[in-house]
């Protein structure tokens, strides 16, 4: 296990290096003088000079990168030009909100996706199977921001059951928090549930056709035990690792969901920063999301090795 872990950690170094180069390189895409673009409406030469100094725009590009990456390694992602606060502080404030949303979305999608996938595999080639597949196709093809708008229309505007927007922390009021996050979490988890359903179905079909399931049936075990205890336990291993990987993708999907439901999370931070030309925040959020995704990837690999005894040796 240790050599595997060491090898995987070593592989992270070049990936993280190139991620940092790509995200730093974004700044070079700014048309014209970057200082002018960063200053927005401001045209005061003194302010422009200060921006050039602060971001070392007057230095060669490799030195600019070295200073930037040096700062990142010490936890300094720069300062928000609009909010005049360190980017890391802003991210630390917003991250728990998005994390809550993403975790709820994962729970919802696991419940829907795995259950539907197992039922679909067990009832293969029946009308239930076709219906589940249609729902999955619908889930994959529906843009989550449109689904969000439609659900707001149904549950908030028409029925008045849930609030249309806003966010309350679970530490302030648990039930109100649940009410404000259940719709966005469902919207966020919708397409993931569909992906999960397809993976569970194919993993279950493979497991149901394997020798150990045939043996379990030959022993006279009840079909429920064969499906739940023998086939599902083995089929779910790759599905669980997929879940860990998807947490990163959900962070991306949260951008739109948070925008639709006006949730003050990570996604809304990046969109607000884009429109306020707060480039340090855009870079910081992209970097943190990519790093989170890479670390989740690593955790998924480790989990895969841990649950699969054949890979441990």
């Amino acid at each position, binding site marked *: 296990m240790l050599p595997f872990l060491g090898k995987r950690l070593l592989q992270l170094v070049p*990936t993280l290096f190139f*991620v940092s180069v790509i995200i730093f390189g*974004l700044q070079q895409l700014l048309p014209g003088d970057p200082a002018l673009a960063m200053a927005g409406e401001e045209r005061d030469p003194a302010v422009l000079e200060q921006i050039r100094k602060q971001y070392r725009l007057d230095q060669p590009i490799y030195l600019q990168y070295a200073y930037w990456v040096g700062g990142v390694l010490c936890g300094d992602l720069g300062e928000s030009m609009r909010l005049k606060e360190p980017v890391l502080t802003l991210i630390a404030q917003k991250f728990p909100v998005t994390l809550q949303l993403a975790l709820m979305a994962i729970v919802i999608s696991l419940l829907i996706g795995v259950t539907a996938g197992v039922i679909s595999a067990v009832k293969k080639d029946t009308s239930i199977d076709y219906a589940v597949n249609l729902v999955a196709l619908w889930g994959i*093809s529906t843009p989550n*921001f*449109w689904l969000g*708008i439609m659900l707001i229309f149904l549950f908030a505007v028409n029925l008045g059951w849930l609030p249309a927007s806003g966010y309350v922390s679970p530490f302030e009021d648990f039930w109100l928090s649940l009410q404000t996050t259940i719709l966005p979490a469902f919207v966020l988890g919708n397409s993931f549930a569909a992906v999960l359903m397809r993976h569970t179905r194919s993993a279950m079909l493979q497991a149901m056709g394997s020798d150990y399931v045939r043996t379990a049936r030959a022993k006279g075990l009840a079909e429920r035990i064969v499906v739940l205890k023998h086939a599902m336990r083995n089929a779910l291993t790759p599905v669980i690792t997929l879940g860990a990987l998807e947490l990163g993708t959900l962070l991306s999907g949260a*951008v739109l969901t948070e925008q639709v439901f006006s949730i003050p999370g990570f996604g809304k931070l990046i*969109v607000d920063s884009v429109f306020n030309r707060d480039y340090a925040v*855009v870079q910081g959020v992209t970097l943190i999301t990519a790093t989170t995704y890479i670390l989740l990837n690593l955790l998924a690999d480790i989990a895969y090795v841990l649950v699969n005894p054949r890979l441990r040796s």
Partner: protein
Amino acid sequence: MAVSDALLSVELRDESPGARAWRRLLKRKSAVLGLVIIVLLVVLAIFAPLIAPFDPTQQTWTAVRKPPSLQHWFGTDESGRDLLSRVIFGARASLLAGVVSVSIALGLGVPIGLLAGYGGKLTDMLISRITDAMLACPFLILAIALAAFLGPSLQNAMIAIGVTATPIFVRLTRGQVMAVKVEDYVEAARAVGNPPVRIAVKHILPNILPALIVQATISIATAVIAEASLSFLGLGQQPPAPSWGSMLNTAQRFLTNAPWMAIWPGLAIFLAVLSFNILGDGLRDALDPKER
């Protein structure tokens, strides 16, 4: 009977791979449905000025937020513009974004993937690590960041989506090249003295084309959603030009008294994405050599 079977089998054996894939695709009802919807959307997009009943940017202040009627089938928006005409013209932005961004991704990704798969070890390692790094940045966040730095416009949104989708094609091409380059016909092409570029383009590329076609079709679906997302956020098509994403953004503000404004553009995105997805699934089966 036996003679006709034999004739059929000879006919099938002489069939070109393209014709065989087309025949198999036509057997899949859902894929054909997807293809028909796509063709309809393309026709709508190309002939939009002839088909749309109104000018999509023409504001009519006496017909603000009118529900669907005989005159305005889909209703009107907050400026009295005909929603049906805007949905029809919106197909242009979405389909253009889908095709152009995937063409950018193919144009960059395939040559880089070929280089990684067929070049030296060092080139492969370098390209693979950069690809890993790009794939580590979540698709939409990287596209938003790119569009933000390039500036909001449909053209920049297409570039952002295309560049963000590139690593998928690099990885796919590289993987396919790795599998194909050990085949006998590649060895034979090398043995007769073909230069590496010729082997890559003339012998490897045609054999990895099916996988690329399937991925490109599915990627168009992703690109259509991505363009709609960027336009929804205000980073894609700029008003007053119609785009399904930006129409949804506006519709959100009038959900209480004009819900039809949100229904049609959303349905249009859903239909376009669904069609490319089911066509992609059908193509995957039709082009799968194991299905022969």
